[in-house]
């Protein structure tokens, strides 16, 4: 596909759809269940979303800290590897799609698939030294989704943990452990104003180093990542194309029967991207970028768990503001800004069943170009679904999953229609 005039404008719908269709890799690692003989429910509020115990376990470097964490403390036959696969049926549509044959409503997917196949290897190399290695097979190719080592409890302090490698940022809601399967949502993690060349995705894994500190039970925690922005064409700067991310969170445990848990937090990211390159035959040379310009996003989060936190009604609100430097956008006359967020509701009335709903939105503020309508490319998306675990044990878990999502994106000019893309998904999610 070649986009000639206003390339970002014509391709925008399909780009959105592409983002929409990328299956969401989800982590839940039964190797830990086998190692410690606990069920998935011990660490997951609703698989694969972590609960407090799971977060504390993760923050502690995948350790229970009871003298049985090191590899020599486990039986010789234990192998820290798990697998995850989601055989599924998916139907995706998009309307008002410009094609050479005119504007069409397309069904872009309508059949069975197996999604991604994840190999999840995680555990401890030694006490207080943990690792995660996740090769994933998708679309006929293997990709290393995560690969890091972490030095835990340095100086015997839970406030000093250093992770090095390709890692997930410490997000308000993990994009790798969402309840949905289709990659829908989390617009505030990846959104860029129309025409921006930056591809920074806060929800994607980054190469770099992360510091995490937390108190007892991880009620108060902080994380800072320094990284080279994933997907960047590269620059000659230190750290390639540097980015920084922070996340602070505080948890309350009110003595109320209505609200069992509440959390507030703040996060922010600043990611650079090269805007000029040395060229060869007119083509940019990778790694030769200069004139780094920044896109930023920062925001607040609030979690409230209604009812007992073992079977909670979990409400999460994330509000964010973002901007892209005008030099990242061709023809821009000013920096582009946007506001957005998401509301996620998940109810786990029984340990095996979790209906969920999420509403995402992006509302553009200052457009980069006066040609664009003030609400051009504003986006909303809702996702509704249900997961029902058929069985879980200390060895494996498998669940039925149903989900429907719809994303609406306004046109870039007043005469362009709103594009709606939808996704219907049914699958069996299993991890062993």
């Amino acid at each position, binding site marked *: 596909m070649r986009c000639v005039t206003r390339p970002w404008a014509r391709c925008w719908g399909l780009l959105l759809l592409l983002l929409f269709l990328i299956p969401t890799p989800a982590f839940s690692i039964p190797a830990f269940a086998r190692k*410690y*003989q*606990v*069920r998935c*429910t*011990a660490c997951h509020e609703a698989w694969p979303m972590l609960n*407090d*115990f799971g977060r*504390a376990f993760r*923050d*502690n470097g995948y*350790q*229970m*800290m*009871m*003298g*049985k964490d090191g590899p020599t403390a486990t*039986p010789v036959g234990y192998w820290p590897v798990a697998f995850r696969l989601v055989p599924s049926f998916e139907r995706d549509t998009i309307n008002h799609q410009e094609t050479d044959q005119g504007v069409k409503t397309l069904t872009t997917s309508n059949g069975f698939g197996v999604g991604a196949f994840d190999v999840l290897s995680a555990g401890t190399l030694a006490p207080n030294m943990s690792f995660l290695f996740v090769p994933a097979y998708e679309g006929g190719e293997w990709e290393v989704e995560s690969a890091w080592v972490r030095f835990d*409890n340095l100086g*015997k*302090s*839970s*406030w000093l943990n250093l992770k090095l490698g390709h890692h997930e940022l410490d997000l308000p809601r993990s994009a790798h452990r969402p309840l949905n399967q289709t990659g829908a949502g989390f617009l505030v993690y990846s959104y860029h104003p129309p025409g921006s060349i930056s591809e920074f995705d806060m929800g994607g894994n980054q190469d770099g180093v992360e510091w995490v500190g*937390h*108190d*007892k*039970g*991880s009620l108060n925690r902080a994380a800072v990542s320094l990284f080279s922005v994933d997907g960047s064409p590269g620059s000659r700067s230190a750290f390639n194309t540097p980015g920084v991310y922070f996340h602070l969170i505080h948890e309350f*445990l009110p*003595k109320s029967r209505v609200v*069992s*848990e509440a959390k507030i937090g703040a996060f922010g990211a600043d990611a650079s991207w090269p805007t000029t390159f040395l060229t060869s035959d007119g083509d940019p040379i990778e790694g030769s970028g200069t004139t780094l310009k920044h896109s930023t996003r920062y925001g607040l989060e609030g979690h409230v768990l209604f009812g*007992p*936190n*073992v*079977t909670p009604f979990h409400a999460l609100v994330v509000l964010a503001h973002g901007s892209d430097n005008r030099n990242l956008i061709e023809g821009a006359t000013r920096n582009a800004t946007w506001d957005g967020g998401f509301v996620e509701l998940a109810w786990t009335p029984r*340990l095996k069943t979790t209906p969920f709903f999420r509403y995402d939105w992006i509302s553009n503020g200052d457009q980069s170009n006066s040609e664009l309508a003030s609400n051009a490319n504003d986006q909303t998306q809702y996702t509704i679904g249900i997961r029902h675990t058929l069985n879980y*044990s*200390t060895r494996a878990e498998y669940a039925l999953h149903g989900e429907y999502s719809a994303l609406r994106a306004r046109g870039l000019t007043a005469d362009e229609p709103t594009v709606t893309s939808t996704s219907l998904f049914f699958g069996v999610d299993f991890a062993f």
Partner: protein
Amino acid sequence: MKNFNRRLLPSALALLLSASSLPTADAVAPPGDPVQGKVVYDRYCVSCHGVEGDGRGEGAGYIFPKPRDFRQGTFKWRSTPSGALPSVADLDKTIRDGLYGTNMPTWYVLGERNRMNVISYIMTFSPRWQSEEIPAAITIPAEPPLTSESVDAGRALFEKLQCAQCHGDAGKGDGPSSHEQRNDWGDPITPADLTVGHFKGGGTPSDIYRVFMTGLNGAPMPSFADSIQPAEAWDLVHFIESLSAHAAPNPQFGVDGVPIHR
């Protein structure tokens, strides 16, 4: 549906029993809601302790030492005299802090309400909670100064009481009868290695004192409350501490290293 009923039946009966039977005057009042406690138990505990609280959960076969069988109301880690039920605080301490060297992690993050609820549910597994009262915790007198004389006296007592039969001459848990030890359920059990600096019942001097004077119900470790005086027990504490004087402190789940030594 059939499986659903079969799995719920024992718990439902236990709850029904606890709710419908007339408690005696000595019945222990549950500190929380056993119905909610069952949900906590099903989420976190059942894989080891089993649906029926018999310590035969699906993961129990791969765990050493074996998970506690709740049906007898027999618990090792208590502040109450030998043979007695533990206090709610004793159970909460075990759940909150975990047991180092076992598969029982610290469940601090559950919060107090969940812990009280699950303790209430655990109480439904044994009729003892309906017929016995919880005696007062043993009295732990103030610790005398740590001196070399006290350590030597403790060493002499260690020999006199034949502690080395199980714990070994150097306290490494490798005494001549260490491999023969079994708990009340017939499961193999190893005497504690006193040199590593980790004590399941807690690492403070008072915690160690308490073990001597209460014994470990269900395990071969007896109570010495009737055979040694408090001052002698402190001597033993000082000697035991000397065995692990150079060991690393006991880290806790999500906590900075919690020193068990002075």
